[in-house]
């Protein structure tokens, strides 16, 4: 069965968040900023939908959270990758690369059917 559009997006968003958190622990707003920067403003709508995703990932044990002070002394909830989260990122990256290679293979097709 093909994943539905929202599954695809959700899964993608989770993978991207994992990737952002792989750099360093970060609060929600920071994750949103990083995503924007790193994706060239592609993921700039509905920052709020980060939070349900973070909550789901927390439940799956991929991230954990803790309240810390920011650089300018504000209290914020920081999210941090767990070991399971790192493994999940690796799995998703591999799956993504396989999918991307397959998709590219189709798009770049130049042969002919025998």
């Amino acid at each position, binding site marked *: 069965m093909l994943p539905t559009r929202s599954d695809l997006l959700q899964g993608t968003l989770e993978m991207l968040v994992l990737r952002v958190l792989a750099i360093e622990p970060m*609060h*929600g*707003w920071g994750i*949103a900023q990083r995503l924007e920067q790193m994706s060239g403003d592609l993921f*700039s*709508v*509905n*920052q*709020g*939908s980060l*939070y*349900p*995703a973070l*909550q*789901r990932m*927390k*439940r*799956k*044990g991929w991230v954990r959270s803790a*309240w810390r002070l920011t650089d300018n002394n*504000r*209290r*914020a*909830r920081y999210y941090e990758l767990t070991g*399971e989260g790192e493994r999940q990122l690796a799995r998703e990256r591999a799956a993504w690369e396989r999918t991307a290679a397959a998709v590219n293979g189709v798009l770049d097709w130049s042969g002919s059917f025998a």
Partner: protein
Amino acid sequence: MSVLADLASRVRSLLSAEREDQELDEEFRFHLEQQIEKNLTAGMSQREARRQAHIKFGGVERMKAQTRDARGIAWIESLLRDFRLAVRALRRRSSLTAIVVLSLALGIGGSAAIFSVFNAVLLRDLPYADPGQLYMMRSLTADGYPTGNVTPREARPFSENPDHPTVVAAAIAWSQEVQIVDSEGQAQSTRRYGVTERFFEVFGPRMRLGRGFEPGDRGPTIVISYAVWRDHLASDEDIIGKSVVADGFEHRVVGVTPEDFVFPEDPGYWALMRLGPGYDRSRSYRAYVRLESGQTQDRFQAELDQLSAELGPDPSTGRPMQFVAQPFLDYMVGDLRSTVTIMLGATAILLLIACINVANLLLSRAVAGAREVALREALGAGRWAIVRRLLMESLLLASFGGALGIAVAAGAVRVLLRVGPADLPRLDTIPVDGTVVLFALGVTAATGVLIGLAPAAFVAMSQLRPLINEGGRGYHSGRGAGRAFGTLVVGELALAVVLVIGAGLLVRTYSNLTHSDPGFSSDRALTLFMNVPGRVDAQFLGRDSDNRPIITGTFYQPMAEFFRDLRDRIQAIPGVEAVTTAHSVPLAATHYDANMLFALGDRPAGAEGEDVRYAITRSVDPDFLSTMDVRLLRGRGLQWSDRHDSPGVALVNESFAKRYLAGLDAVGQRIRFPENRYVPGNVGFQLGHFTVDDVQVVGVVEDVKYLALAEPPEPTIYVSTQQWIGRRRHVVVRTSSDDPATLVPAIRREIEAIDPRLTAEFALYSSIVRASVARERLGMILLVTFGLAALVLATVGVYGLMSYSVEQRTGEIAVRSAMGASAREVVGLVLARGGTYAVAGIVLGIIGAAALRRVIEGQLFGVSALDAGVLLVVPFILLAVAVLACVVPARRALRVDPAGLLRSE
């Protein structure tokens, strides 16, 4: 591992839901502030920076909800939140809550109490194995006159056929009052049940000791009841195989029944009975049948129909017989089933009315809160969430009501046991058991849904959005809710009409009963029932040639002397006007009456044209008529000169003369009792020691209500205690005192003077009469209570509806007043509306009552279920109540100030 972590995370979230919500708020605030700062840095205005931050974030509330959902505990959490909100809301309106909870507690408690009676009487299993397969085989004569009893010949196809395809076992039995010699050598009165061999196979008790009867049993063999074994035989654990003297013979004991094996009548013993063909015509036996599992009443009935066709007419009477299969439980419970069912129905109606009222209260609150609902909905709260919250409130109310209701039920059952008649079958204990609690829980849940449904449906279906614009007094909601209100109140009125009509019919029945002429006078009278004078009987205990105790001789003379002595002593007490004794007296314990087969005239029984029937036959003292104030219509009464050695005489009552001697002069007719024969060795310690089997009617007396005031009098033959000696005697003492009880000590002294060991049960005759209608009185009290409660609830309902209606139409009333409508017209407006609802409810109620008339018909006496009086009076009561309920709303309508109202709009 991850499943566990998931679960742990969910549980943590659940436990810390409130803190997590706060943290989420803080997290979002932080996010938005960061974004706003960034926007400001980018050069936006304060206002624009804030707006853009929110746009970029998406809906804050929606995101919060989605994040909460992601915690995976949304439904529990929202349930808990609904619960907290509901508790808070109910606490805020504590007086409303109290009223609702109290009325629900009464409704639920009342139905649970009546249900526990229903449970005790009809649902609880009989203490027999697989009781659903137990049946009675009953007989009817062709003209429908029930005798109930069968002859051994009629039961034989079942009782003596072990291979019957439908019937496991059948047995016939008959009972008589006898003596048993106790462990101290004293004669004790008890009951002997003569039963055929397979009796214990039919009932299947697990024996306390020994066994039931077996095919190989020879000679006099008995099984003893637990009570007799304990009370008279010193709980002898080694009694099996021993001999006990009972009914004048030695019997071998083979078994003792378990404690909970209760045969329908008094405790006694079961004697193995073998019936030769000589007994084939005797219609004195009850037939008990156990069907094979899987066999039904219909199947058994079909066999009985076939049997009556095969057997042909009863050889004693020459009349065809019909047989009826009656479930054993029905036989035991009798007509109590319909009474209890009606009461249960009545409580259900009352509970329904209470539910409607509560639903109305909640509905009015929902309407009042409609604006809030509309706002919340606009803010994104799902309508389902609002409905859910309303349902939560109503379930909470119902639960409180239900919890309190179970306590009410426990109390009500105690009261019922106190005011209820003592002789109700199976009502010795009414347990508030698991079934009852389950019932109460079910009723509570149903109540919660019922009372929540109306307001929830209103919210779910109504157009709320316009309300915001209309400032809360919207006609959209008003009209929908008004219709809902109206329907509920009409329904409520209709239900109240049904209950009040029922109550009215029972009140008339009770009044008819207590004012009916019983055919005798109970004024200033008391009765005493003599416990069997063991001293008299003991004179006849003798020894046989093997020095074993036996009962010897005839006891006629000493018995007669004993009662003559007793009468003389009581008569001599100052204040006593008259004394008489009788085997049974009206309305008190008549179940030992003999239903005697009799023949009229000289021809032999069964001959062509012979009139052979059954009639109740009672033996009474010659002065019974004068003492009981029973009128002699023709001929003469019994006289002391009609002695045991003079020709037999009898009186018959009016019903007997009309039924059996129509067109003849009753006086001078001859009545024979073909079954009366002296059986040597079976000395008459039973009901009647028959010294005569042939009597001449010397007089006709007025009918006397013997069984119950509501029962039609039955054809009765009175014979003399001088000629039919009975061992059970009621003594009736007519006094000159308005308080006959004051004579009890003096009478007791006289009895003690004869023998200090003798005991007597005293009763005021007036209380015997009262007790005989106790069941009817209880039914009436219950239904009148329910009816009054229904009236009060319906009044509250109408009041609420009209108050709401006046409030909704304030504008219209103001305009009309401004246009010059008089106070009368304004009041008329309100009354017309209220009256319309009332009339609709009354009409529906009367239709309902007419539809239900079959249900109550069996409970009525001297009044039809469609009694014109009741049907005319009840609507007026309801109408008056409805108008009364309109008074306060109408006054409020009069106070409407047109100018002020128009200004305020």
